[in-house]
């Protein structure tokens, strides 16, 4: 039996689903429940990582330091982590997070751009943090290239490198191939993070575990961008049923997670986190999941179909962080409809 680490992302990826407006009280309550259930790690950051508060991605309700300190104060065994996207957040933000109690960081880049993470991975190691490389939009990158990028992150000092299906666009074969390749190529740990846009959130995470993943991400009730993440309580139930076959042990208790999902997280939701038509199109078009709410707003503002915006973003091969192009695409679609003279 090997020990599988579970990383809760309810309070980070879930920020996308609530437009970064989670209250301190909600954060603390979710963190208490995650801690009590015995989850290994919990991530607290703006949805787009430290320093993500912006007009482009949305300002958060509170300062990052306030969120981190509030959560750090109630954790007894779960380790506190943060997300950092080089190009958005800086080493200064990382230092702030460390000072507030974070001891884990995921340094996230697009899956072909690992070399921009060196500065931040090295800084995190210098602080003595559990340091993870996070290769986003992995579905766009051929496996051989993904391995090269993962090796770079390992060489900078990452303790673990993640395959990140940011668009929820990978199927089981895609998942197995990428996780297996990283496990074969790396000496450090391998992780997996995904979204449920094609209905494969839990299934692909189980495939990643079968392929040897050492850490996997999930969130309560799936609270996360797009159709949400792999559902933590469902994953824990499935892992428990399959523990003999999978050969993994987890330290988590099921009922406290079910209760937290039902009693705490579902009542927080403003827009249902589910595979509705627009969330589905994210996975189908292979688009960054956090574009969803921004595309819905732009659709309303400029009178176009959110699905058309998402498909066009996929066609242009936009990557994570390019939320500004949503308005660009919406304006172009509105102009196209106007000149065609046919209201949609």
């Amino acid at each position: 039996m090997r020990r599988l680490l579970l990383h809760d992302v309810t309070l980070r990826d879930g920020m996308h689903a609530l437009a970064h407006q989670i209250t301190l009280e909600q954060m603390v309550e979710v963190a208490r429940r995650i801690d009590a259930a015995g989850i290994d790690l919990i991530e607290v950051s703006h949805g787009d990582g430290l320093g993500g508060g912006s007009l482009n991605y949305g300002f958060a309700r509170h300062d990052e330091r306030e969120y981190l300190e509030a959560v750090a104060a109630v954790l007894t065994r779960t380790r506190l982590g943060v997300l950092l996207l080089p190009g958005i957040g800086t080493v200064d933000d990382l230092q702030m997070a460390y000072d507030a109690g974070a001891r884990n960081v995921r340094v996230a880049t697009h899956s072909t751009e690992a070399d921009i993470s060196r500065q931040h991975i090295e800084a995190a190691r210098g602080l003595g943090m559990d340091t993870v490389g996070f290769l986003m939009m992995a579905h766009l990158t051929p496996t051989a290239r993904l391995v090269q990028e993962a090796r770079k992150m390992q060489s900078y000092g990452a303790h673990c490198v993640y395959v990140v299906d940011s668009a929820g666009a990978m199927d089981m074969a895609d998942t197995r191939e990428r996780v297996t390749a990283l496990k074969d190529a790396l000496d450090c740990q391998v992780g997996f993070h995904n979204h449920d846009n094609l209905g494969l959130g839990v299934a692909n995470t189980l495939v990643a575990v079968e392929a040897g993943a050492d850490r996997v991400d999930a969130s309560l009730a799936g609270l996360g961008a797009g159709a949400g993440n792999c559902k933590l309580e469902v994953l824990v139930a499935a892992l428990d049923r399959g523990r003999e076959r999978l050969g993994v042990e987890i330290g988590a208790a099921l009922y406290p997670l079910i209760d937290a999902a039902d009693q705490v997280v579902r009542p927080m939701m403003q827009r249902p986190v589910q595979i509705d038509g627009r969330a589905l199109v994210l996975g189908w078009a292979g688009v960054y999941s956090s574009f969803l709410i921004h595309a819905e707003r732009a659709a309303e503002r400029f009178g176009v179909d959110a699905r058309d915006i998402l498909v066009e973003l996929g066609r242009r091969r936009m990557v994570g962080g390019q939320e500004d192009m949503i308005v660009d695409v919406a304006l172009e679609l509105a102009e196209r409809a106007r000149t065609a003279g046919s209201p949609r």
Partner: protein
Amino acid sequence: MSPRTPVAILGSGHIGTDLAAKLARSTTLELRAMAGIDPESPGLQRAAQAGVFTTAEGLAGLRAWAGWDAIAVVFDATSAGAHLAHAPLLHADGKRVVDLTPAAVGPFVVPVAHETNSIFDNDQVTNINMVTCGGQATIPIVWAISRLTNVYYAEIVAAISSRSAGPGTRANIDEFTRTTAHGLEVVGGARRGKAIIVLNPAEPPIVMRDTVHLLVEPCDPAALQDAVAAVVERVGAYVPGYRLAAPVVHQPIHGARVPGLGEGGAAEVVDGWHVTVLLEVEGAGDWLPKHAGNLDIMTAAAQRAGELFAAALQPGGAA
């Protein structure tokens, strides 16, 4: 017509080589020398073929050259570390310096923001810094709008093709975000600046995109459109591939909680307009490919800054 001002380039990498190609067309600057550290570099070989003095001994090679005294303006396209060593020597030799590195020894310059209120006439300013590529593309917009209304906050998103992001940028991406944010404040006139950079690996490569998001005090929308259109045209005069990708849009925003805007770096809640300006920067394709608009705007702005320095050095001052 006055004779062209003699200039030199330090650095024979992509930036220096592209700048050399642009200077070959200048009617006011004459490239007389180029220094690198690799005699085999294509940049030095091209310069030598064009009849320019070349040395692979760096700044020392230029200072030992008989023509050095005549050089009025030096463009430094090496690295931040190298520029820190070059700057005192260039100052001692009485040169005006346009620094394209992130060293930022001298004040930030974005040419359009200084043409009417010139720091080029100031004898105390002999070394100027070109901020960043994203800064050159976006600060003009913030500067133009801040002359029209209060800019509480300016944020930019620069998206560049992975192919045009060199190893220096990649190794220290925090330097880009910090320097650009600072430039949005000190040159652009925003109370608070923030910069975001995204690398996109799509093939064929994407053209550089820059988006400026501003939080401003409401103003006359027609004047806003006009101010942006006017400044885009003025930047376009020295960066031909610089253009608005879409009309300027704005919407009211209430209770925006902006990090770092308040006292002591605290967040402050602001009401106003959220203005979005979508820009595209296509390169001229001189030495660097057209998708490398980010590098092109640096060399084009540096050339313009050099021309302004040269004009100020002419008898009678700035043109």
